[in-house]
């Protein structure tokens, strides 16, 4: 069976909705299977791979940085890229250029890149299937 290529479009911003939890679980399955993965991070989702995200402690709960173990979406993106590579797949993660400029998040996790909706069109043309996860 030939290697599958799956495209996923994301729109939700980091740390707000459960859509991203589900999206990363779906992408994780593709990475474990060694599929090629295209992600078009649009609108708020363009901040997912912003490299300057930092975890934080939780003084309200009395937890230091290590105890809080706060997940960041930039680490989740990096983990996705690593998992795919480990299993022989490739990830082409595109951050919408105008979206990152608007939000000031134009510094990305290595291995992701700046792009435009034209990249999404190309992804769709080249993929076995596409899943669009819109905002609610």
């Amino acid at each position: 069976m030939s290697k599958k290529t799956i495209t996923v479009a994301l729109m939700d911003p980091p740390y707000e909705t459960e859509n991203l939890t589900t999206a990363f679980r779906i992408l994780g399955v593709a990475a474990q299977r060694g599929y090629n993965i295209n992600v078009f991070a649009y609108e708020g989702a363009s901040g997912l791979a912003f490299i300057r995200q930092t975890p934080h402690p939780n003084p309200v709960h009395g937890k230091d940085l290590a105890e809080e173990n706060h997940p960041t979406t930039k680490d989740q993106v990096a983990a996705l890229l690593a998992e795919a590579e480990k299993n022989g797949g490739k990830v082409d993660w595109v951050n919408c250029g105008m979206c990152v400029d608007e939000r000031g998040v134009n510094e990305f996790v290595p291995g992701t890149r700046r792009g435009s909706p034209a990249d999404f069109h190309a992804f769709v043309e080249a993929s076995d299937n596409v899943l669009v996860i819109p905002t609610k």
Partner: protein
Amino acid sequence: MAEYLLIESRDPFESNDVGYLYELAQGLVESGNQVTLFLAQNGVLPARPSKHSAALAALARSGVNVLADDFSLQERGITKLAEGVTSASIEVVMDHLAAGHKTLWH
């Protein structure tokens, strides 16, 4: 005949739009298509026996494969499932995508 995966992430207790997706699933099956309805996130709430469960049972009886994301069920403490609903792994979504089935997220 086509194969469809409809993913419902919304809670019918909160969003009346959910009924439209159920109607879409019903219509697609009646038109001779194979349809899987995958409930995720708060979309699994009607999988707990409740006022909205009857709609899921009716879909299942009409031929829709009604699945509920096991992770979403576990998060919400739902262990007893309504008639016609089966717990399933998120792997199901990737199975359908890889098979080229038409997939719609709501």
